[in-house]
C-alpha cells in the first residue's frame, strides 16, 4: 500500500527535473558529436590520411563558404533553388490534395485508379530527365516538371490513406444529417485527412529538394546544384564542399520548416498536444 502511494509522487516530481537535465545533456552531447565530425574532417587531410586534393580541411571549407556569402551570384543560385523547390512543391500539394480527396471519397474512382497509382508511383522521376532535357533544355521548367512529378505521388498516396481513414460511423452520420458534399469534405474528411496531408507535405518537401538539386546538377538548371557541378569539374574542391554544406543546411531548414508547419496545422491534434504537454 505504501509503495503504491509513494510511487505516483515519484513519477510526478522526478521526471521533470531529470527530463530537463537529460535534454540539456543530449544537446551538449549532440554539439560534441558535431564538433568531433568537424575535427575529424580537419585532421584527416592535415595528418595526410586523405589527400587534401580530395578532402580539404574543414577550416578551408568553412573559409570558402564565408567568402561565398559575400558573392551576389551565390545568393542568386540559392534563390533559384529555393524558388524552384517552393513552386514545384506548391503545385504538387494543391494537385495531390485535390485529386486525393476527389478520388479517395468516391469508392468506384478509388478502385479504378488503385492499380494505376501503384504503377506510376514507383517510376523513378529521374527517368523523365532525358525527355525534359529534350523539351526544355536547362530552363527551370525542366526542374519544375521533375519536382512536381516526384512530390505529387508522395502527397497523393498520403491523402488517399487519409481519406480511407475516415470513421465510417462519422461519415454515415454526416450523410444521414444530409450534410452537403462540401460540408462533408470540410468537416468530416478534411480533419481526418489533415495529419496525412501534413505527412505528405513533409515527405514531398524533402523529395522536391532532392529532385530540384538533381535537375540542377545533371541538366544544368540554374541553382546551387549547377554550381556544385561547375565547381567540381573545374577542380575547385573546397568550393564544391562548401556548396554541399550549404545544400545540407538548406535540407535541414526544409525539414525544420516542415516540422513547424506540422505543429501549426495540427495544433488541435492529439499527437501534437501530447508532445507539447
Amino acid at each position, binding site marked *: 500500500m505504501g509503495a503504491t502511494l509513494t510511487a505516483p509522487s515519484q513519477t510526478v516530481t522526478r521526471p521533470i527535473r531529470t527530463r530537463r537535465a537529460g535534454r540539456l545533456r543530449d544537446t551538449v*552531447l549532440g554539439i560534441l*558529436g558535431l564538433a568531433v565530425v568537424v575535427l575529424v574532417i580537419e585532421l584527416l587531410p592535415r595528418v595526410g590520411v586523405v589527400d587534401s586534393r*580530395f578532402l580539404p580541411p574543414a577550416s578551408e571549407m568553412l573559409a570558402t563558404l564565408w567568402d561565398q556569402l559575400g558573392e551576389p551570384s551565390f545568393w542568386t543560385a540559392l534563390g533559384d533553388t529555393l524558388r524552384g523547390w517552393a513552386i514545384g512543391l506548391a503545385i504538387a500539394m494543391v494537385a495531390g490534395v485535390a485529386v486525393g480527396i476527389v478520388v479517395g471519397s468516391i469508392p468506384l474512382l478509388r478502385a479504378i485508379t488503385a492499380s494505376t497509382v501503384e504503377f506510376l*508511383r514507383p517510376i*523513378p522521376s*529521374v527517368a523523365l530527365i*532525358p525527355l525534359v532535357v529534350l523539351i526544355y533544355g536547362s530552363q527551370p521548367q525542366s526542374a519544375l516538371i521533375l519536382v512536381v512529378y516526384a512530390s505529387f505521388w508522395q502527397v497523393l498516396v498520403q491523402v488517399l490513406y487519409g481519406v480511407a481513414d475516415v470513421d465510417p460511423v462519422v461519415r454515415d452520420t454526416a450523410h444521414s444529417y444530409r450534410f452537403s458534399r462540401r460540408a462533408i469534405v470540410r468537416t468530416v474528411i478534411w480533419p481526418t485527412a489533415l495529419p496525412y496531408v501534413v505527412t505528405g507535405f513533409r515527405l514531398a518537401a524533402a523529395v522536391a529538394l*532532392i529532385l530540384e538539386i538533381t535537375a540542377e546538377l545533371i541538366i544544368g538548371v540554374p541553382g546551387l546544384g549547377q554550381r556544385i557541378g561547375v565547381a567540381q569539374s573545374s577542380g575547385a574542391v573546397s568550393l*564544391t564542399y562548401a556548396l554541399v554544406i550549404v545544400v545540407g543546411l538548406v*535540407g535541414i531548414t526544409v525539414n525544420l520548416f516542415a516540422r513547424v508547419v506540422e505543429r501549426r496545422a495540427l495544433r488541435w491534434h492529439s499527437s501534437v498536444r501530447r508532445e507539447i504537454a
Partner: protein
Amino acid sequence: MTVRSLARQAALTLGLPVAMIALWWVVSANSTSIFWPPLSEIVEAFPETWTWDRIVNSVVPSVVRLLTGYTIAVVVGVAAGTAIGLSRNVRAFCEPSMEFFRAIPPPVLVPIIALFTGYTGATAKIVTIALGCLWPVLLNTVEGVRGLDEVQLDTARCYRFRTRSRLIHVVLRGASPQISTGARQALSIGVILMVVSELFGANSGLGADIVQFQRSFAIPQMWTGIIMLGLIGVVLSAIFRIVENRALAWYYGLRRADRGA
C-alpha cells in the same frame, strides 16, 4: 459468382491503364512532334532496342550495382542503427550529425565521390548508391530500436536471453516494421541514384543508354528506355512488397487483431 467478381476485379484493375494506353495510342497516332512519337512506333522499337544482348550488357549491370549498394546500405544501416539506438548517450551524440548528413540530397554525393576516384568504375557508383540508401535505413532503425517495448527488453533480460538471441529476437524483430519502412524509402532513393550515377559518368548501363538515345535523337528508343526504367521500378517495388509481407506477416496480423478487423 466468383467468376463475376473476378471479372469485376480484373476490369477495375486493368480498366484505367488500358483506357490510358488506348488514349495515348489514339492521340499520338498521327503525331509529327519529334518529342512525342506515335505509341505504335515506341512499341515497335521496344523489342529491337531491348535485345537479349543489351539487357545482359546494360540492364543487368545497372541492377547488380543497385542491389549491391542497397544491400551494403541495409546491412550497415541496421547494424549501426541498432548500436546507436540501444544507447541513449550514443544516440544523443550522433543525432545532430546524422540529421545533417541525411539532409544532404543524395545526388550531391556524385560530384564529391567523383573528386576522389573520378567517375568511371562500378565502385564509385556502388558507393554512391550505398551512401544514399544508408540514411533512411539507419535513422529508421534507430527510431525502431528506440521505440522498443521496455517490458519486453526487461523480460528478455530476466529470462537471461543471450545477447545474440536478445538482439535477434527482441531488438531486431521489434524494430523490423520501422526498418522495413526505411528500407522501402531507401529502395526508391537507390533507383534514383542508379540512374543519376549513370547520367553523370555516362559510360555503361541503362541510364547511360537512355542518354545516348536522347543525344542521338533516337526518340522512340529513348521512350522505350523510360518505359524500361518504369518497369524495373515497378518490379523492384513488387518484390519488396512480397518480401515485406512475408517477413512482417506477424506484425500485420497483430495490427489487424488490434483493430478488431
